[in-house]
């Protein structure tokens, strides 16, 4: 038993998109939710956000970046191969209403998570400003798709090789300073990016939703590996999140907890790459 990969596409360096047959997940999936996958019998359980769920076909789209052993191993699977376990949908769906003008900031792989969100925001009649940020031009993904979906669209690169030079937060700051009225901000990407977004929006009092991606094990509220501090209280991202009011999140703690196993992750990855070279 397993979950078959039906399609696979390389979106950019180390970024892959797969479509998995998982009708049990898609029938209830909503934007903002995630799945836990385990690639094989000896694999670990990791959370991955649902990029798109085709309810009719039962097809689940996942976009992931290869960073550690598990995601690299997942990246080696081809069409027809099976993932041992896919469970979900997990977490609470994003709260989506008609807010007015919404800025959606996506950094790196966070861009993929914006897809279902922007689609849902548009369906509710929001005016969506999308700002994507990448380190450099070669790493840009989903430009065409998200541009089509958004009312306004910007790209920033850290090195200025494409779009505006700088960070997504620089663009947001520019818009706010120019007097643009923004009713809600969604920021999804690396922790420092989400943290800075919140620093930018705080003086304007704009509610800013961030999607957190800590280390998880079961993903159903049983272990507490994913605990974070929000408004001084301990929350489990898997059941209380992954979306939180960014102005309340203790990002420094999140960053530290994400690094809990760096040494072990390195061992795992080195072994994996050594095996692959054989």
């Amino acid at each position, binding site marked *: 038993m397993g979950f078959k990969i039906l399609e696979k596409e390389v979106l950019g360096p180390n970024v892959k998109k797969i479509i998995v047959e998982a009708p049990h997940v898609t029938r209830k999936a909503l934007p903002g939710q995630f799945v836990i996958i385990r690639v094989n019998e000896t694999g670990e359980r990791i959370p991955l956000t649902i990029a798109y769920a085709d309810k009719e076909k039962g097809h689940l789209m996942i976009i992931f970046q290869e960073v550690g052993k598990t995601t690299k191993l997942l990246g080696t699977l081809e069409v027809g191969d099976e993932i041992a376990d896919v469970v*979900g949908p997990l977490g609470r769906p994003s709260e989506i209403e008609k807010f007015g003008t919404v800025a959606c900031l996506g950094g790196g792989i966070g861009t993929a998570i914006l897809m279902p969100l922007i689609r849902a925001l548009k369906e509710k009649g929001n005016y969506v400003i999308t700002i994507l940020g990448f380190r450099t031009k070669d790493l840009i993904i989903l430009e065409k798709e998200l541009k089509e979906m958004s009312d306004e669209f910007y790209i920033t690169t850290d090195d200025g090789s494409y779009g505006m030079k700088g960070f997504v937060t620089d663009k947001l700051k520019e818009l706010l300073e120019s007097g643009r009225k923004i009713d809600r901000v969604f920021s999804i990407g690396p922790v420092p990016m989400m943290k800075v977004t919140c620093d930018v929006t705080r003086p304007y009092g704009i509610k800013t939703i961030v999607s957190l991606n800590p280390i998880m094990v079961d993903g159903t*509220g*049983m272990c507490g590996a994913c605990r974070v501090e929000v408004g001084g209280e301990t929350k489990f991202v898997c059941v209380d999140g992954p979306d939180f009011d960014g102005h309340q999140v203790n990002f420094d703690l999140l960053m530290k907890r994400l690094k809990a196993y760096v040494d072990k992750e390195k061992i795992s990855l080195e072994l994996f790459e050594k095996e692959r070279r054989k």
Partner: protein
Amino acid sequence: MPQKISPKKVPMPKQPVEQRIKNFNEVALGYTEEQAIAEAQRCLQCKVPFCIRGCPVEINIPAFIKKIVERKFDEAIKIIKKTNSLPAICGRVCPQEQQCEAACVLGKRFEPVAIGRLERFVADWEAENLGIQVPEKQPPNGYKVAIVGSGPAGLTCAGELAKMGYDVTIYEALHKPGGVLVYGIPEFRLPKKIVEREVEYLKKLGVKIVCDFIIGKTATLDELFTEFGYDAVFIGTGAGLPKFLKLPGENLLGIYSANEFLTRINLMKAYKFPEYDTPIKVGDVVAVIGAGNTAMDAARSALRAGAKKVMIVYRRSRQEMPAREEEIENAEEEGIEFKLLTNPVKFIGDENGWVKEMECIKMKLGEPDESGRRRPIPIPGSEFRIKVDTVVIAIGQSPNPTVPKTTKGLETTKWGTIVVNEHTCATSKEGVFAGGDIIRGEATVILAMGDGRKAAYAIDYYVKNKNKPGIWEELRKATKSFVPKTYEFK
């Protein structure tokens, strides 16, 4: 029967301490045939067997022990399996000292008969000599029952219903069936191959098991009726929500809930890293907070995972420790230190956010509280610090909230347990039954199994009388269970 009864149980052969603390293999090795017979001969074969009353599933204990004396092990297992479908598990993890063995007449003067060890012996003998035996089952009756959760309550309920001819499907959230038997109880106390064997047995009975499927997320409980067409549902989702201390510094790195610590080790096999991908960090000095069975499991796992020093930190005294005596003794033998009458007040971290010290306060015991145990009271000014690398918080679990939170009309208590009729396990929602830790908070494997069994017979009665007016009222108000008696007390 021998003239002179040995005052002590035949000792359980165990792995030597110095060897076992370096591996995750089972500690207790089990009786040989001769040892089992010698122990079985200690049974007085009482005319009024109090031991049966001490057993939540009323195994005919003297009868199966008699068969051991007669070397008829195949008949012994049949007697046990009439009322207990998971004897290899119960023989290992039941608190016999509070149940059957507590009621043993021999126990008044000597050590009671080692009923648990004999049960285990018979179950292991069957597995080794006969393989998985599938009992006779009724022809399919056309009714469908869904079981939510594959722990001891769910497995038992599924087995009983399958034997009655039901089409049974178990839905499990994790990737492996077994619930707490797989993620919670360590290999050295309950080898996972025994759980796998019991699961195989259910599959042979025709039970379907769907893993990676969370009722309340993947599908709601109501959809099990409306979309999946089940006639009844049994909820056995256990007590999986970890409790934390709510102390400063509790989210520092290196501080685990017992659930996370044990899940990484047991379910994810982190002790075999990097062969298995899931990592765990066990430092040189480990403090486990709490003194229940889970705390003992965590402490002994930490030792096996490479810790140099492991402490149990408990706010009451040894007498109040909720763990089984056998587990406390095992932990002591293995060199676990007990810091009693000690309670943590805060955790102190290093510059990278890792826990490095724990501030504790000394306690003394006051008057008994609602639990009947003497209440621990902090001694002002007695604070002191202990250096630690890893902390495991094992102060208990709450009922899993997933199903109650996503189901309308399911009455729960303020502790989050589902309210049921104790004889039928019927909840406030028609067609829905519940048992095990989800109705009890934190209890035992055998009580969960007892619930699963009671529920199975109540489900059978309900499904077959669905059209009877007031059927649910009847089940809600029942004053006795539907389980047929296999043994009549005179």
